[in-house]
C-alpha cells in the first residue's frame, strides 16, 4: 500500500504530461482485422520468414490492476491513461509462499516500503530495467529481426537489445541497467538468458531487489496476435535463497506509436516524498 501511495504521487505528477500527449492514430500495416476493421486479437500469431513467431508490435501490460473508484487507493488510478501490472507493484504476488528473500533483502524491503519507495530509481528519473518494464505504464515496441530482438521503451526513449545470433553471454560484463541478453529458439518459445546487471536494481514498486549476481531467464511466447507471455526466472543468490518464476502478460496496442516520455523533463515527485 505504501509503495503504491508513492507511485500515486509519481503518477499524479506525471499524469498531466501524459494527458497532454496526443496518441498517434496510425493504422498498423499487415495486422489481421475482423470484418468491421478492428484488429483481430485472437488471430494466429504472425511468423517471420523462417517460420518463428514474430513478437514485433507495440505492447502494454495484459494483467492490469483493476480500476475501481469505489475501492480507492487499493486500485488503479481511474484517470491514468495507461495501466500498470499487478506484478509491477508486487512482483512476488503470485509466487507460492512469496519471494524467498535472503534475510538482508527482506529487511531492505521493509525499509523501502516504510519510506514509501523514496529511493526507487524511478523517482530520480534513472533508467528502468527488465523485468519491471513489462509491467509499468509505458508502451514498449518490440522490433524483431533475424539476429536481434529490439525493445524500445517510451520511458526516457530507452532501448534494450536481445541478440539472437547465438553469441555467448559476456564472461566479465560491464554492469548495466538491463544487462546483456542472448536468446535462442526452443520450438515456438524464445529463451533469453541475461547477465551483467548492475547492483541496486528494483523489481517492483515495493522495492524487491535485484543484485549484480542476478541471472535472468525469459521465455517469450505469443499465443495469438493480441497477446504475449513472458515467463521470467530470477536466479539471484545474493538476494534470494532460491530461483523463482513470475509471468508477465502483455496486450498488443495496435494502430498507435511510441511518444516521448522524458522523465527528467518534468520531475517533481522527489521533493514531495517524506524525508525518512
Amino acid at each position, binding site marked *: 500500500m505504501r509503495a503504491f501511495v508513492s507511485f500515486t504521487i509519481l503518477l499524479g505528477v506525471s499524469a498531466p504530461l501524459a494527458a497532454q*500527449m*496526443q496518441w*498517434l492514430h*496510425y493504422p498498423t*500495416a499487415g495486422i489481421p482485422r475482423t470484418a468491421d476493421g478492428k484488429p483481430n486479437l485472437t488471430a494466429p500469431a504472425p511468423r517471420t520468414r523462417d517460420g518463428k513467431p514474430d513478437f514485433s508490435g507495440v505492447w502494454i501490460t495484459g494483467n492490469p490492476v483493476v480500476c475501481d473508484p469505489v475501492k480507492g487507493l487499493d486500485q488503479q488510478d481511474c484517470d491514468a491513461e495507461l495501466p500498470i501490472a499487478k506484478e509491477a507493484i508486487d512482483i512476488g504476488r503470485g509466487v507460492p509462499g512469496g519471494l524467498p528473500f535472503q534475510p538482508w533483502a527482506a529487511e531492505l524491503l521493509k525499509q523501502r516500503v516504510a519510506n514509501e519507495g523514496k529511493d526507487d530509481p524511478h523517482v530520480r528519473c534513472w*533508467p528502468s530495467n527488465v523485468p519491471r518494464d513489462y509491467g509499468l505504464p509505458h508502451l514498449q515496441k518490440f*522490433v524483431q*529481426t533475424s539476429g*536481434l530482438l*529490439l525493445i*524500445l521503451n517510451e520511458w*526516457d*526513449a*530507452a*532501448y534494450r*537489445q536481445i541478440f539472437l*545470433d547465438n*553469441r555467448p553471454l*559476456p564472461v566479465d560484463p*560491464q554492469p548495466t*541497467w538491463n544487462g546483456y541478453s542472448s536468446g535462442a529458439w526452443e520450438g515456438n518459445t524464445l529463451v533469453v538468458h541475461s547477465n551483467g546487471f548492475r547492483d541496486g536494481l528494483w523489481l517492483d514498486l515495493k522495492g524487491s531487489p535485484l543484485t549484480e549476481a542476478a541471472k535472468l531467464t525469459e521465455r517469450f511466447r505469443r499465443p495469438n496476435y493480441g497477446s504475449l507471455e513472458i515467463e521470467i526466472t530470477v536466479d539471484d543468490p545474493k538476494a534470494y535463497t532460491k530461483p523463482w518464476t513470475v509471468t508477465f502478460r502483455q496486450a498488443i496496442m495496435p494502430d498507435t506509436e*511510441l*511518444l*516521448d516520455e*522524458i522523465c*527528467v*523533463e518534468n520531475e517533481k515527485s522527489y521533493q514531495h516524498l517524506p524525508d525518512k
Partner: protein
Amino acid sequence: MTNRNLRLLSPIALLLAPACTWAQWLHYSSPVAPRTNDGKVNVAAAAPRGQDGKPDLSGIWAPQPSTIPEILRSVPDAGSGVPAPLGSEPITKYFANIFADFKPDVVPLKPGTKLRSDDPALRCLPTGMPMFDTYPLQRKIVQTPGLVILLNENDNTFRQIFTDGRKLPEDPEPSWLGSSVGRWEEDALVVETAGLNNRSSLDLLGHTHRTLSPGQLRDHRLPDDSG
C-alpha cells in the same frame, strides 16, 4: 588558449567524462561483415543491400573524427593549443559547431542572436537533433522493412525513421528528436523531421533551433565511408 576556447572544451569534458570512465567496448566479431584474407573487416567492400535492392545502413557507426586543428578552426576565437581532453575522442567538428563548413557570412543566424551557454544536455536532458547524430559516441542503425531505428549510446536512447510511406504528422506532439519519415532517392535515404521541441542545442557552441532554417539530414553510405 582563449577563455572562449576553454568554455567550449569544458562542456566537452563534462559530457564525455562519464562515458570515458565507464565505457568498455564489447569485442564480438560480426558474422556478416566482409573481411579481408587476414580476417580484418574490409571497410572498402561494396555497401550491403537489402532485399529491396536499397543500401543497407545497418551497423555500428561513429562520427568520422575531425582533426584537432579542424575542430579548433570551427570554434571562433580559438587558440592554437591542443586541448588534452580532445586527444583521444572521435569528435567531429560539427559536434563543436554545426556550421563548421559555412562561411561566417552565410550562417543563417538571426540578427542579434546570442549563443546559449546552458546546454540542456548538461542537466541530463536529451541532446536532441542534430546532436543525436554528431555526438562522439557510437550509434547503431537497425534497418528493417518500413522502419530504420537508430540506437545511440548517449543516453541509451533511440530514434525511429519510418520508411513505410507515411507522411509526417500534421500536428505532431513536440519532442526532443521529433517525428521522422524517410524515402529513398536512388541510394540516398532522405529523412525529414518535424515536431522538434526546439529546446536542445545544435552544437557545443550554443547554436539553437531558433536560429536554423528547416533542412534535411542525409544518410548516404559510400564504400569508403563504411566502417
